[in-house]
């Protein structure tokens, strides 16, 4: 199940629950700026890379630029 979270939730999840931060925008946008500690897995590569790069036993927080 996926849940929408706020900025405060992200801070709590990463600090207290070892959540993995994932930016799903294209790599160039990730390299331009990203949340501290986030890794880059562009949306189109999720299926191919998620299991290799992420720990399925820990929470994952995904984000892009904004609501749009």
């Amino acid at each position, binding site marked *: 199940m996926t849940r929408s979270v706020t*900025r405060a939730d992200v801070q709590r999840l990463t600090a207290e629950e070892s959540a993995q931060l994932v930016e799903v925008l294209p790599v160039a946008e990730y*390299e331009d700026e*990203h949340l*501290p500690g986030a890794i880059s897995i562009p*949306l189109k590569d999720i299926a191919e890379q998620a*299991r290799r790069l992420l720990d399925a036993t820990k*929470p994952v927080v*995904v984000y892009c630029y904004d609501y749009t």
Partner: protein
Amino acid sequence: MSPRAAARLATLGFGDVYDYVAGKADWGSAGLPLEGANGSETHAGAYVRTDVPRCGLGESLQAVRQRVTEAGFDTCFVVEENQVVLGRIGRRVLASDTDVLVGEVMAEGPSTVRPSARLSELVERMNRQDLSGLPVTTSDGRLTGLLTRADAERALARS
């Protein structure tokens, strides 16, 4: 994009997935640090003068004038109890001899910029509009501080 990514992760067996819907635009607008080639050090938030004077609507201009002078600034932002910006007291008003309440003479609703705004764009804007500085606020309108043109130009020259 993130809702689709979250949904796809769920189909791949990830059971604990969260979608930060507001994204990095929200993060930067709150003045939180960003990393990368154009991370926080090239954004307004890194160079804000947080000690810019603040005052309330009901304060006397005379008292504010003295405080602003002692602080070494030539402007003061009018804020409410949660630091949301209501107005600005500029050089011309501060130089006047009147003793009125701040709320009667402030410039209402000044333009503000976010901590995530790019320095290069802000310097261009300040030069174009001949501004000595811009107030920086979070996305919910709370004052972070003042970005001066001089500080922004110096930071750009160093980068």
